[in-house]
């Protein structure tokens, strides 16, 4: 049976843990806000580049760039994005389970699968499973920069051109809201049907607007291109992949922070429950102690009176 002192110590320890989880929740909330800002800031850029590519793709030959060429699929690369740090609930576990399901599904269909990872968790996971990632990036989450997206895109594009694999998909958590994330598997290479892909999430209104704009951009043909249409297009295409990857990185880190927020929220609540439970026990022990002492005293008094009388 725990002594009163042990119980008080325990309450204090729980309170300290609670302070930490509370602080972590606050930090996660601040980080989440930052990432959301960046997502918002990134949108106009992504939109512009997509528009330019959609316009240009009408003006040039289809197979001008190797990443537009669709090869028969033999090997499929999965780029799995997780976080570096834990303490974010089932965030990493979910994405990794989803990813390995994809892997076995693809293998069942007779494809070879190669893997590259972003984040320490994914790397460790696949190493443990004996699937050595083809490439891995660590230390990105928390400070996602466009530069890192560029590095990843460059690596993937180079490997695609070298025919290390014939298709690339990204597996990541898409940020829906604070409480829900969606697991997504999303094809980035090769680029097909640029015109449609350029605005998959376009609302009906935007589509109409775009049609109208197309009327004007008939005269896009009248643009003078420097150095040449092909050169501009070739330089822009990798940009398209970069954008997809950067978006995935941002979505993933937003989801990570959101997941951490709710995990820490729960932890804080659990601490509160624990404190209440332990306090109850402590009170019981204290009262028992008092009762025992009282009984001792009463017993002592009785004994004294007897011996006196």
């Amino acid at each position, binding site marked *: 049976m725990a002594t009163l002192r042990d119980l008080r110590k325990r309450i204090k320890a729980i309170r300290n843990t609670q302070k930490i989880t509370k602080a972590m929740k606050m930090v996660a909330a601040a980080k989440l806000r930052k990432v959301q800002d960046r997502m918002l800031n990134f949108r*106009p*850029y992504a939109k*512009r580049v997509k528009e330019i590519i959609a316009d240009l793709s009408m003006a040039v030959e289809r197979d001008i760039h190797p990443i537009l060429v669709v090869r028969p699929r033999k090997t499929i690369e999965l780029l799995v994005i997780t976080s570096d740090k834990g303490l974010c609930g089932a965030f990493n576990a979910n994405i990794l389970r989803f990813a390995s399901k994809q892997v076995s599904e693809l293998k069942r269909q007779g494809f070879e699968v190669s893997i590259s990872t972003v984040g320490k968790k994914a790397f460790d996971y696949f190493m443990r499973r004996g699937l050595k990632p083809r490439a891995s990036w660590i230390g990105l989450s928390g400070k996602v920069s466009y530069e890192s997206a560029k590095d990843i895109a460059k690596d993937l594009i180079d490997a695609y051109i070298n025919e290390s694999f014939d298709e690339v998909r990204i597996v990541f958590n898409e940020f829906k809201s604070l409480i829900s994330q969606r697991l997504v598997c999303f094809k980035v290479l090769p680029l097909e049907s640029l015109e449609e892909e350029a605005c998959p999430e376009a609302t009906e209104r935007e589509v109409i607007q775009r049609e109208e704009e197309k009327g004007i951009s008939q005269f896009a043909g009248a643009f003078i*291109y*420097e150095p040449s249409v092909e050169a*501009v297009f070739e330089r822009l295409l990798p940009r398209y992949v970069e954008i997809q990857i*950067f978006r995935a990185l941002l979505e993933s880190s937003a989801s990570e922070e959101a997941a951490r927020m709710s995990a820490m929220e729960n932890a804080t609540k659990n601490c509160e429950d624990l404190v209440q439970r332990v306090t109850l026990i402590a009170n019981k022990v204290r009262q028992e102690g008092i009762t025992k002492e009282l009984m001792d005293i009463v017993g002592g008094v009785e004994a004294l009176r007897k011996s006196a009388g």
Partner: protein
Amino acid sequence: MEKLRLVIVTPYGQVLSEEVDEVTAPGSEGEFGVLPGHMPFFTTLKIGILTYKKEGQINYVFINSGYAEVTHDKVIITADSAERAEDIDLERAIKAKERAEERLKKMEEIDVARATAALERATMRIQLAQKRIPR
């Protein structure tokens, strides 16, 4: 008088959106100037300095390669990154320059093109921040 709308977007947000009188930008095939009523024109940009004139005043913006789309009343710049002269972090640029120079000096299994580009960016930023505009 007619005006041009100058818009600069980067992955980190929209840097600028203003009505201006005149724009000069560092095209990859050479610097070019744009006045209202310019013919439709699309070019890649190299690392350099974009200047624009507004109400008689000349302003400078650092551009880290990208694209420029020019129509008769608009100039849209899509850049990897861009900063107004007054927003440049001089200290950071100087540090970046030192780093790049060091890497170039060592010359061991590094991406020379990348280090050179980093050096160029840093140098350009420093020059702009110190108002020594290369001409």
